[in-house]
């Protein structure tokens, strides 16, 4: 893998994590190039969420090393990972429904202006910067003063991704960003992933929607019971093969056949 001499954005090697009797991660590796979109797939309990949490600092591994841009790092909290410009979009999105779009994008780092030493929200700057940010990422939301509860699922997902992207990350991890979205909303989110990676951000996409992988990913890594089982360039594989790799045996999945017939090539 390393013979091509390129520097990797992320190199995780020999990551292991044990919870009681269960070896959740067993000597797992993960490599990611700048601007690359990696699909991380596997059945429930295969360890993909745990692996992403190790990289986002939410889980501390028992052993293994992480290098970012060639430098060894060790994360003991999500704040450490954020400092190393690794951002994670959680599956539950972490949005405050009764706060407006701009307020959610800037949650915890609101622009402030001080009047007599008292910090006040700089609402104008916050809304202007939000507008710029949304336009740059091509997110369609008419009014930055709308409360998030009034937005569609796709728009909410876009805001969560937009917020993570606005921290200027070098690595963006997304856990099931397209679950429970309408068809056109999935398209918009996938478009957003392409836009982010085109700006040089490396993306790790965790999903059960295999058809999405073939639309945005450069490479797929398959995990099975806490181990890496396969890695494929997207051009060299098919949805049928990926399904077989995920379930760990030759499996003549009806869903896989149907998808191939409809043509899932990007």
């Amino acid at each position, binding site marked *: 893998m390393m013979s091509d001499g390129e520097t990797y954005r992320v190199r995780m090697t020999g990551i292991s994590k044990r919870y009681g009797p269960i070896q959740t991660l067993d000597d797992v590796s993960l490599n990611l190039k700048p601007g690359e979109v990696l699909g991380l797939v596997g059945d429930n309990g295969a360890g993909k969420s745990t692996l992403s949490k190790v990289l986002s600092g939410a889980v501390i591994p028992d052993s293994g090393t992480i290098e970012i841009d060639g430098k060894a790092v060790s994360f003991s909290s999500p704040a450490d990972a954020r400092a190393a410009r690794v951002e994670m979009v959680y599956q539950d*999105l972490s949005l405050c*429904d009764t706060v407006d779009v701009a307020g959610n994008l800037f*949650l915890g780092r*609101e622009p402030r202006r001080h009047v007599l030493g008292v910090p006040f929200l700089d609402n104008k700057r916050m809304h202007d910067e939000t507008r710029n940010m949304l336009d740059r990422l091509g997110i369609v*939301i008419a009014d930055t003063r*709308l409360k998030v509860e009034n*937005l*569609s699922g796709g728009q909410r997902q876009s805001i969560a991704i937009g917020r993570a992207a606005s921290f200027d990350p070098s690595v963006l991890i997304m856990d099931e960003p397209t679950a429970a979205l*309408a068809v056109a909303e999935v398209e918009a989110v996938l478009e957003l992933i392409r836009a982010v990676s085109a700006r040089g951000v490396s993306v790790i996409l965790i999903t059960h929607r295999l058809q999405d992988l073939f639309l945005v990913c450069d490479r797929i890594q398959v995990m099975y019971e806490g181990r890496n089982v396969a890695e494929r360039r997207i051009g060299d594989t098919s949805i049928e093969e990926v399904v077989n790799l995920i379930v760990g045996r030759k499996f003549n999945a009806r869903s896989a056949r149907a998808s191939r017939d409809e043509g899932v090539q990007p």
Partner: protein
Amino acid sequence: MNVTSPSADMGASSSRRARKGSWKDVAIANGSVVSIALFFIVVCVVFSLITGSFLTTPNLLNIVRQSAPLLIVAAAMTFVITTGGIDLSVGSVLALTATLSAVLLQAGLPWPLVVIAMLALGAAIGALQGFFIAYERIPAFIVTLAGLSVIRGVALLITGGYSIPVEPTSFFVNIGRAWFLGVPVPALLALAVLIVAYLAFNQTPFGRYVTGIGANAEAVRRAGVDTRFMTLFVYILSGMAAASAGIILAARLGSGSSNAGQGFELDVIAAVVLGGTSLFGGRGTIIGTVLGALTVAVIGNGLILAHMSPFLTPIVTGTIILVAIWLNFRLFKGAARSR
């Protein structure tokens, strides 16, 4: 994006909403404030018609003077309830600070020291309760219910159940009785507190986090905000507000009674909820709280002026709470459906 897609529809409807809202959009978005404002106006008009003395300057000033403690504590309670919490101990804190300030003045302490000591006591009680709520994760209802009982008990223990007089020549009574520029001092104090509360709630990061904690505390925590301290802090605010209400009450009545403020916490919560703040958290408004508190005060005052039984007050107040919230609920539902 496909034209017929749900998200495109959503985008279209939100751009329709975006044309800098007509008053109708604003009214629907602030349905809770509009409905309590209507109630407030209706109540005022009714009492102006059936009693000649309601709509007179002395009576209106009397209402704001008497409702100052309610307004101050309700402003702080808006913060507490917006985080998804509750503070049932405010009536007891009011009683304790009212009696203790009378006791300390009798002991010869200078009045500024008494005021500072009482505010510090209120803050300390709030901090203690806030610690159990924010750091030990005990439900606010239980912690402050225990507080309600214990703090009232301490006030009774100190006074033996008697009320303690404040020397009428002391400067202290001016806090509750003096007039400044033709307005009662308690009303000015309440106004100052309300302005600060309004700015803090709507224009500062602190107010934003209070709303955020009520809506999704975990999201605010992940954003790097110290949510536990923020939660503790709102109970410090309500403790201090209750202490200032106790001081104002003792100064106005010229005595500190351990029985003061029985049921005060329910009046405060009624005012806040009437104003449209959600008991589930995440949604609060200071303007609504002011209108709610004034509505509760006007009903009490108007029924007395109309020579009706004062025992009607709780019946009317309770009915209005239910009807106002019901209307508000229908208004919101209607808004959601038409969108």
